[in-house]
């Protein structure tokens, strides 16, 4: 009977696992009890928010989900930047106040998001590193170093693409496949950056304060990227009037772009609402 507690999600086991093990030790084994635990574990996987009350575990789960969402949104922002870096866009921004304002909102919000993630996650990263070293958790240390490996690997791909891609006088001509390769490498590197820390933060509990700061910072960073997406959509609409030849000005780009950005933002919003509630609860508990 005792091994049945392993059927529950890790965060649930962290909070209630020892208690459930104790109860299973005290309970005579039977088919009915076994089925009851299996059904309970299934409910915990299906409805984690209803089946877990542990502010710390909830916040760490939220950090993992929000990191994946942030990387996805940041990739979308990077693609938009890539498509609007031509000097011609600067001329449109200078000539038309609406376009300039929308592009400005996009840039400021994207920069603010990057700043919030960097500064907000530093205390948690430091705490995790120190705790992992103190507890000799080499598995956690490896996970925390994975962003360095991912960024180095992306840098290598970038150098290869810049070296091997054909040169042309017309911007963008003949490099479509190279751009797609770079985009794919960027996405893989981005998820590499998010995956290691997300697993590390789930595996190792650290102090409540840096965890709370990380949740709040990620909430701000996701909101900032949502604002950047709105700015990008408005800019795209402005360009539709003032620069109709640009790829980002076409509804065929703008509509899927906003739709693809909305999905990770919605997932992050649900998880962050739970994480922020847990952060508030942890604050009240001291």
């Amino acid at each position: 009977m005792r091994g049945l507690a392993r059927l529950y999600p890790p965060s649930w086991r962290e909070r209630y696992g020892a208690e459930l093990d104790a109860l299973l030790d005290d309970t005579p084994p039977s088919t009915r009890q076994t089925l009851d635990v299996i059904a309970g574990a299934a409910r915990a996987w299906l409805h984690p928010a209803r089946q877990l009350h542990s502010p710390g575990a909830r916040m760490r789960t939220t950090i993992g989900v929000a990191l994946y969402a942030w990387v996805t949104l940041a990739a979308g922002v990077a693609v938009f930047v890539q498509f609007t870096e031509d000097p011609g866009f600067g001329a449109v921004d200078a000539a038309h106040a609406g376009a300039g304002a929308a592009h400005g909102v996009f840039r400021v919000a994207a920069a603010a998001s990057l700043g919030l993630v960097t500064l907000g996650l530093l205390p948690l990263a430091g705490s995790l590193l120190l705790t992992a070293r103190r507890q000799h958790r080499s598995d956690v240390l490896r996970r925390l170093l994975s962003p360095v490996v991912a960024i180095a690997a992306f840098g290598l791909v970038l150098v290869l693409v810049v070296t091997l891609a054909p040169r042309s006088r017309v911007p963008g001509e003949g490099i479509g496949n190279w751009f797609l390769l770079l985009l794919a490498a960027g996405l893989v590197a981005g998820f590499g950056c998010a995956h290691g820390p997300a697993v590390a933060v789930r595996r190792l509990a650290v102090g409540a304060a840096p965890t709370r700061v990380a949740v709040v910072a990620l909430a701000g960073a996701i909101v900032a990227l949502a604002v950047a997406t709105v700015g990008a959509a408005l800019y795209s609409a402005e360009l539709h009037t003032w620069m109709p030849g640009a790829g980002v000005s076409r509804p065929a780009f703008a509509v899927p772009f906003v739709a693809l950005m909305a999905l990770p933002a919605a997932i992050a919003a649900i998880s962050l609402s739970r994480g922020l509630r847990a952060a508030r609860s942890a604050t009240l508990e001291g």
Partner: protein
Amino acid sequence: MDENSRRADAPVLVLASLAAGAKHGYAITQDIAEQVGVTLGPGTLYGIIARLEERGLIRALPSDDRRRPYELTAAGADALAERSRQLRKVADLGLKRLRTAGTA
């Protein structure tokens, strides 16, 4: 008592058990089994404990033992009192109607 009724009333049974004092998981199941003849499975019990704790109706007490006790909060006592009054009304109505019909 059928399975659906048992599932619906199980949170009230846990609150009622804790109204008599703080208890850990096994003590809660034993108390409920002795008092009302309902046996809550371990998975069901901990699903209920998590939900009641999340809603602030019970709280875990510090313990060095794996068997962590829980106690009723003030909000939990209010919720139990309210639910008990509702159940009493239903019981009174049912018994009254049965008496009127001459079957009880």
